[in-house]
């Protein structure tokens, strides 16, 4: 390899909401940053999501607390970035069965102990808040912290803000080889070869393929979700209801399916039908709305469901930022990663998010 290699202090692979948030936050502290993506932002998981900013019901409770800190960053981001259509609607999770009520009470108690504002609503209280909920519910959990955002706008807003601070982005540029040479990483791509002192892998469910070049195993797999989108309707849903939300544009997004289907991004008859029944069960008025499209996305799911954020032991300069719930967590993941990349102490302990927990 005698070709000219461009050097960057930090290279981030993956320009989804997580990678671009890291670039944006890091650009407030340091310079000379490159972000590489094999495709275009939004082509992967960041563009195939309901994009809830969701806190309550997350388990374990300390993880809900972590999600809350990230959700609390959204009102600030909304001021700092271009319009990302973030709305703090409050979130409602309806309960249909008596035997789940006692367990929901425990959940509410556990989350309140962590300082999360969450309430158990009676049927009447829930229907007063959200009149279009099914009258078959018997109760619901509610938190004012929950909301949603336009994920494509969020992704673009991070990128635009980072570009204004001189971060370089290279799209449609798949990485073909990563090597460690001395104190540097040599990253070969289809367009160019780069060197970097620090390398961040933020490629979601595709991260394990990149980490393999450096002999690092990352236990993350794709978990497919299928989502239905209706025609736009006048605003009738006030809240983000677990499984159903209405966009600023008026369309309703429905779905919370989980399938082990490898990297296949197809939609299927079974899940489309089941999702329609699920939506109508929770919000009966959806019956008369029309579906305009169905799509599937791949969650990046670590083996224990919790994020992997931080340095990799044994490979100095290598960092991972891979997680499910990248939309909810992208603000705090970007902030924490920017702190450690700039050599600062992280403002939230990263101990629970270490890669090494899987080997212990």
């Amino acid at each position, binding site marked *: 390899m005698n070709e000219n290699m461009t050097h960057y202090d930090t290279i981030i692979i993956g320009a989804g909401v997580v990678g671009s948030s890291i670039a944006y936050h890091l650009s407030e502290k340091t310079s000379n940053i490159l972000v590489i993506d094999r495709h275009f932002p939004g082509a992967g998981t960041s563009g195939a999501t309901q994009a809830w900013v969701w806190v309550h019901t997350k388990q*374990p409770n300390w993880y809900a607390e972590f999600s809350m800190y990230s959700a609390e960053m959204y009102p600030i981001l909304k001021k700092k970035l271009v319009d990302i259509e973030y709305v703090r609607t409050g979130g409602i999770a309806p309960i249909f069965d008596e035997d789940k009520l006692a367990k929901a009470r425990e959940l509410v108690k556990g989350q309140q102990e962590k300082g999360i504002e969450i309430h158990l609503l009676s049927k009447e209280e829930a229907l007063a808040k959200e009149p279009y909920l099914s009258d078959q519910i018997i109760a619901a959990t509610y938190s004012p912290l929950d909301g949603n955002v336009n994920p494509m706008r969020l992704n673009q807003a991070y990128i635009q803000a980072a570009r204004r601070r001189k971060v370089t*982005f290279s799209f449609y540029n798949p990485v073909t080889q990563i090597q460690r040479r001395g104190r540097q990483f040599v990253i070969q791509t289809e367009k160019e070869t780069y060197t970097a002192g620090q390398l961040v892998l933020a490629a979601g469910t595709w991260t394990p393929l990149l980490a393999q070049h450096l002999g690092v195993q990352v236990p993350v797999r794709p978990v497919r979700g299928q989502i239905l989108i209706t025609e736009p309707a006048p605003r009738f849903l006030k809240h983000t209801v677990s*499984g159903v939300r209405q966009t600023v544009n008026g369309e309703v997004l429905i779905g919370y399916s989980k399938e082990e289907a490898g990297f296949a991004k197809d939609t299927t*008859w*079974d*899940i489309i*039908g089941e999702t329609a029944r699920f939506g109508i069960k929770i919000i009966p008025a959806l019956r008369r*709305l029309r579906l305009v499209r169905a799509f599937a996305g791949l969650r990046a799911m670590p083996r224990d469901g919790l994020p992997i954020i931080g340095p990799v032991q044994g490979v100095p300069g290598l960092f991972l930022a891979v997680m499910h719930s990248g939309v909810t967590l992208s603000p705090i993941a970007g902030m924490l990663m920017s702190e450690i990349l700039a050599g600062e102490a992280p403002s939230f302990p990263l101990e629970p998010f270490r890669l090494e927990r899987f080997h212990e």
Partner: protein
Amino acid sequence: MNCGWNRFADEFTIICRCEEVTRGEIETAISQGACTPDDIKRITRCGMGPCQSKTCRMPVMAIIAEFTGRPLSQVASPKARFPLFPVHLEVLATMPNRQNAEVIDILLHAIDNREQTGE
């Protein structure tokens, strides 16, 4: 063929009628690195409306061809998604579930998880 599609369109001409996206907005998206109709859709909502790009797909592909200097035959088509035309949800709800595929209730899922982790 390329110039035929766009000869009468200036930057204010609406290309996507459903979402009212102009030629100017599409060109801006291309200048930011968008290469396909799906890339442009994610930035501008072009082709995201009720017709699902059945009206604007060719004009958009022609603008990409013109801008990038590629022949139209080498410009990607937008991904076609189910359904071909809008269908009421109550109709979809009658489809059988042959594989017992599951859509998960998020709260019950959280409760099950809690029982597993024992927190």
